[in-house]
């Protein structure tokens, strides 16, 4: 860095027709609707806010216990507690008018029709939102509770139906609990998705040896945090090798090195999840130090990092 001159690195990245001021987003379910962040956080500095999953009807979520810590991670089973799309449109969309950061609305449903209805309702009103992230890690009631995200055909069908309804960004959020994430990513790409994001949480369980009880009401929950970073990196890299659309990487990001690694593995943008609970300002901190990293390593822009990992074999 030149002495006395603050060289700001070019952190901009582009997905579809949207330009984001930087690649640091916050992950669905870990930053509320983007409106609850404590005063000490300047959400407008974030690349984007992905809202917690919205469903057709409001949901109370699962009984407690919903959360437990695990080695370098945590398990959650919130059960998609949310205000529902109607109230979301009423109460949240107007607030977004005053934010300069981009909003990506995460949508969840239990059958294709539900996703479609939510999207139709969202698209029927005018709003500043930049796009949608589709949570396909939900149990599909029509298919006996199997996740949408484990099946290529279901993923393709859902992507197609939603693609017709919006010109905004359509991002399919992939589940890591699959034998072959690349085929599912390709199905989303071929059906018209603008990007895929990966990974959602990994299925996990926690037991209290002393009491003999499950630590989570629903027995299984979603593992997140640094423990799953190697899993996320591997899946992002595999997707990057085969897909043409951008990949938004996540899973265990807690610092700038993690962001750099995810971008090197092939992410165009990344999402910070669990780390927000501990430190809601962590996204901002990472933006600052990513800026320094890019300058100090003589790179021109954040995009130079994308997919740049040097593999050895």
């Amino acid at each position, binding site marked *: 860095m030149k002495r006395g001159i603050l060289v700001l690195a070019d952190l901009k990245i582009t997905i579809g027709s949207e330009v984001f001021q930087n690649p640091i987003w916050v992950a669905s379910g870990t930053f509320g609707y983007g409106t609850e962040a404590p005063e000490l956080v300047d959400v407008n500095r974030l690349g984007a806010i992905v809202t917690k999953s919205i469903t057709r009807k409001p949901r109370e979520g699962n009984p*407690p216990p919903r959360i437990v810590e695990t080695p370098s991670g945590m398990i959650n089973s919130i059960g998609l507690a949310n205000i529902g799309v109607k109230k979301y449109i009423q109460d949240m969309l107007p607030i977004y008018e005053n934010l300069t950061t981009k909003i990506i609305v995460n949508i969840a449903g239990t059958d294709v029709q539900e996703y479609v209805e939510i999207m139709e309702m969202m698209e029927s009103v005018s709003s500043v939102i930049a796009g949608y992230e589709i949570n396909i890690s939900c149990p599909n009631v029509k298919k006996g509770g199997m996740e949408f995200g484990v099946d290529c055909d279901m993923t393709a069908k859902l992507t197609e139906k939603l693609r017709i309804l919006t010109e905004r960004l359509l991002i399919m959020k992939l589940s890591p609990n699959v034998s072959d994430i690349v085929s599912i990513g390709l199905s989303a790409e071929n059906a018209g998705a603008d990007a895929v994001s990966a990974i959602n949480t990994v299925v996990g369980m926690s037991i209290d040896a002393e009491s003999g009880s499950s630590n989570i009401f629903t027995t299984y929950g979603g593992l997140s945090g640094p423990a799953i970073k190697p899993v996320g990196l591997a899946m992002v890299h595999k997707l990057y090798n085969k897909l043409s659309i951008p990949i938004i990487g996540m899973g265990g990001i807690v610092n700038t090195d993690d962001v750099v690694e995810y971008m090197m593995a092939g992410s165009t943008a990344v999402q910070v999840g669990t780390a927000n609970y*501990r430190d809601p300002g962590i996204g901002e901190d990472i933006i600052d130090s990513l800026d320094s990293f890019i300058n100090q390593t003589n790179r021109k822009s954040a995009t130079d990092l994308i997919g740049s990992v040097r593999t050895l074999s």
Partner: protein
Amino acid sequence: MIIERARIKSNCEVAHNIWEMHYEAPNIADSYLGAGQFINILALDDWSHPLRRPMSIASAEDGCISIIYKIFGDVTKILASQKEGETVELMGPLGNTFSNWDNGTYPVLIGGGVGLAPILNLKKECAAKKVDHTMIIGAKSGNEHFIEHEPEENIYLTTDDGTIGDEGTVMEPLKRIIIENKNTYLFACGPEPMLHAVREFALKNNIPAQLSVESYMGCGFGLCQGCVIQRHNYEIRDDSYHQKYSLICLDGPVYEAGDISFG
């Protein structure tokens, strides 16, 4: 809500496995609203334990706050190893406070285990406002108590094994005190079985009661939706959200006994 790097002023074992830590945390102390509120502690800078640990504020004065904690697992063990002069990142003050104890009723303060932290604090607030009150503190055994059994001062201790104070649970002295005093209002914090018993007793005898409850917390400030407790009377409406479950970190940790239900 404030995030503040706090200096440890002291950290001592005050009873068997029970420790008291004082922090210099002027900003949090300044914003503190009253007994019941808590802080969320980042005990280690690394990410091996990603979540902060919530602890009730046991006192807040002169720019300092204190906690009273029991060694449970990994992180409380680390807390106990921390030394005067080290700094730790605290988030707080979080949550609501006990209320209406200064409204002409006779407060009975009930603490169990490390649940005594906010109760000791409330006692100080009562004293400061010269509100007459009684305090009952329960523990498993005498070695977990670090205050004195002083019935003449309206301080009653109980132990499961009878080694100090009354043998049995806090319910024994409570039953007597309720008879001896009029217009009582219960304020309790402690393990779930104790809160359960206090709640049942209060509802049955039509005595107002506030309970400070705990739950696993992912964040402490409303982001994760992890810390819920079921409300007692809730309307199941079509657009029900936060009707059935309440977020303890935002709406609590203090609830009117009749408002919540222990599953």
